[in-house]
């Protein structure tokens, strides 16, 4: 069966520090991968999506970047965090264009202080 792992679960980082959040998927090949941020009252905001290794599309210009070094690995990074980067970050995967929707990870609560 397919599973998605996301870590860490919580993270407190000072302003100006780097960030690396990792997401891995098991049990499927060539998934579409997504990074979302969820802020209170704003719903789910798509940050990046990837349809293959090295292929990254950015939805919102910001202080963050994403990489996909392996088929089932998706990384969200920042060189210097801002206070506004605080939020709940979710990784998700889907397969093709079959209308099966997404499967989400458990999320990372990032607090920038």
């Amino acid at each position, binding site marked *: 069966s397919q599973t998605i792992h*996301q870590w860490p679960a919580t993270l407190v980082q000072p302003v100006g520090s780097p960030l690396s959040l990792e997401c891995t998927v098991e049990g499927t090949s060539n998934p*579409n991968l*997504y990074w979302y941020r969820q802020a209170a*009252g*704003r*719903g*789910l905001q*798509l940050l990046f*999506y990837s*349809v293959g290794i090295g292929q990254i599309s950015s939805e919102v210009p910001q202080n963050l970047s994403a990489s996909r070094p392996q088929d089932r690995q998706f990384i969200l990074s920042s060189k210097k965090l801002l206070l506004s980067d605080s939020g*709940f970050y*979710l990784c*998700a995967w*889907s397969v*093709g*264009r079959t*209308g*099966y*929707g*997404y*499967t*989400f*990870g*458990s*999320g990372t*609560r990032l607090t920038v202080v």
Partner: protein
Amino acid sequence: EDQVTQSPEALRLQEGESSSLNCSYTVSGLRGLFWYRQDPGKGPEFLFTLYSAGEEKEKERLKATLTKKESFLHITAPKPEDSATYLCAVQALYGNNRLAFGKGNQVVVIP
């Protein structure tokens, strides 16, 4: 641009008091409409997919219905464990595979 609007934003129910959540959408051809449940501090959990108007799906106390413009999530005789935020999303037939999400319906069921 695909849009999803959910109402009410927040709802408090007494245990056993049935109610409905609304998801209104605009999309250029619907591939699927999805309902998720999200508990605080956790990722959304898949509930249902609806593909065409008139379709209905049920799971325990939840029933989802679909028309050409909106979807309803009916909660029958809710229990406190049904307290959660319910998210609605649509996927368009054409273009990329992305889902457009609403802001959610926050439901609290009081014992």
